[in-house]
């Protein structure tokens, strides 16, 4: 499981990031002592660090330089100061990416997974999600069940992923559509129905019948 260390002094954001990472099968830990960021990094040994620029005591730039003295771990800066100077500074300090506040969960996850993929062999042991014995690999869009593994089409993967992340909860059609829009598929309701239909057929082909249930008038649910 990938470990992400979060250095952010706003509790709301820090918790938001942690729960967002958890949805994607990653573990997040938030810094506890802003004087000892380095010690905590060394102790936790994260695969990736998310660093705010404005922090108590010493700023994010300082810690970035400190971390870079001993480690090549990917670092993403998050900040509300988005002028080009700050972005240039952040990258010069050795950061790998920059996210402007306020950001979407999808943007955060896209950047985190992209960096992990580039740095480590992400597909091998990427976050996997499991439901009713079916395992979805978020690194290579493959679904395996009872020893058979199949490739999912982009939209099918996206729908299944959203349902698995919200296991045992009804997922509204709106939320599924938004998830597809995030991957630049501007689907309408009819297209969504067609896509879900296709996904069901694919699932049936490897023996997962009635995997996704329809909640009439609301959305879909994946129940265990």
């Amino acid at each position, binding site marked *: 499981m990938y470990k992400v260390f979060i250095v952010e002094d*706003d509790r*709301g*954001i820090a*918790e*938001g*990031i942690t*729960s*967002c990472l958890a*949805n994607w099968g990653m573990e997040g830990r938030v810094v506890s002592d802003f004087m000892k960021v380095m010690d905590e990094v060394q102790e936790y040994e994260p695969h990736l660090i998310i660093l705010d620029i404005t922090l108590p005591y010493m700023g994010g730039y300082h810690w970035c330089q400190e971390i870079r003295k001993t480690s090549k771990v990917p670092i993403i800066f*998050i900040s*509300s*100061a*988005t*002028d*080009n*100077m700050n972005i240039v500074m952040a990258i010069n300090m050795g950061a790998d990416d920059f996210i402007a*506040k*306020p*950001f*979407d*969960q*999808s*943007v955060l996850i896209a950047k985190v997974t992209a960096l992990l993929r580039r740095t480590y062999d992400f597909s091998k042991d990427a976050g996997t999600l499991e439901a009713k014995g079916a395992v979805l690999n978020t690194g290579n869009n493959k679904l395996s069940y009872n020893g058979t593994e199949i490739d999912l089409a982009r939209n099918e993967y996206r729908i299944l992923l959203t349902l698995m992340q*919200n296991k045992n*909860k*009804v*997922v*509204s059609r*709106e*939320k599924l*559509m*938004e998830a597809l*829009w*995030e991957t*630049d598929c*501007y689907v*309408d*309701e009819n297209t969504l129905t067609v896509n879900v239909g296709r996904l069901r057929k694919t699932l049936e082909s490897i023996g997962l019948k009635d995997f996704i249930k329809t909640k009439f008038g609301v959305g879909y649910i994946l129940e265990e």
Partner: protein
Amino acid sequence: MFKDYLRSRINVIILVAILVGIFASSYFLFDMPAVTVLYPLVLSTVALLTAGIIDFLLVLNKHKKLVRKEFPDPSGTIEKDYLAIIEQLKEEERFSKQKASSDYNNMVEYYTVWAHQIKTPIASMRLKIQSEDSDLARRLNADLNRIEAYVEMVLTFLRLDSDSTDYVIREIDLDAIIRPAIRKFASDFIAKKLTMDFEPTGAKVLSDEKWLSFVIEQVISNAVKYTNNGGIVISMTAPGILSVKDTGIGISAEDLPRIFENGYTGFNGREDKRASGIGLYLCKRVCDNLGHRISAESEPGIGTDIRIDLNRKNIVIE
């Protein structure tokens, strides 16, 4: 100038005329010989004219200096008084200019800090709301989007006239700007059941990524706001010309020429109390700064087509 001079010396001229009158009438009454009158008359006239010309030249010289805003050495108490007042006014003006500019800088600084401060709670709320799947959460998220857009507008407004250091003109991938902009409004499109038709342009344009993003987001935001049925088409209609076309309520012909003016809301804006008339104005200003051109075509009831000409005119590539 000469007329003004004569007018300013009118008291001397009248005085001389009275004196001439007194002398002439005395000579006439006492019946003096013509020579005794003419001789001093010619001499006096020469003396008077010489004095007059010298005086005029001096005044002319002074006038020329004053036109160049140079102050000639004051002659006499009155001029010294004037000069003292002028010096004092100059000093006061310098002071109030300094104060105004430092007040302005303080204000800009504060609003910039404020805009950054407000982004942290927005970010925090956004993350929390996005982990909820309900109508309420979606509506709150839409409101949050609007708050964020207003904050962006404040920052844009503040930075608009700052030094050009904030503009980084380079070749950018247009689609990489359009896609995130569309994504930003995904929930609005879905909630209003609007369609989005975007064929990737594949275009590379010379522009500033951040500023152009602002313009495109603003244009899409308007399109979504004023469209209730149908949808929006984003396409490149000609090389370098990006079109954002909606099937919305449209803009009436008399409003159309003025929509890019500051504070102009037009009929649609007056109907919709939230309109501030600043969005499109900012777009126009940003486009001007980037060397792009923005224009609009519209038909009420049919829709609006905003076009951004991304071909940069007469601007040197950095």
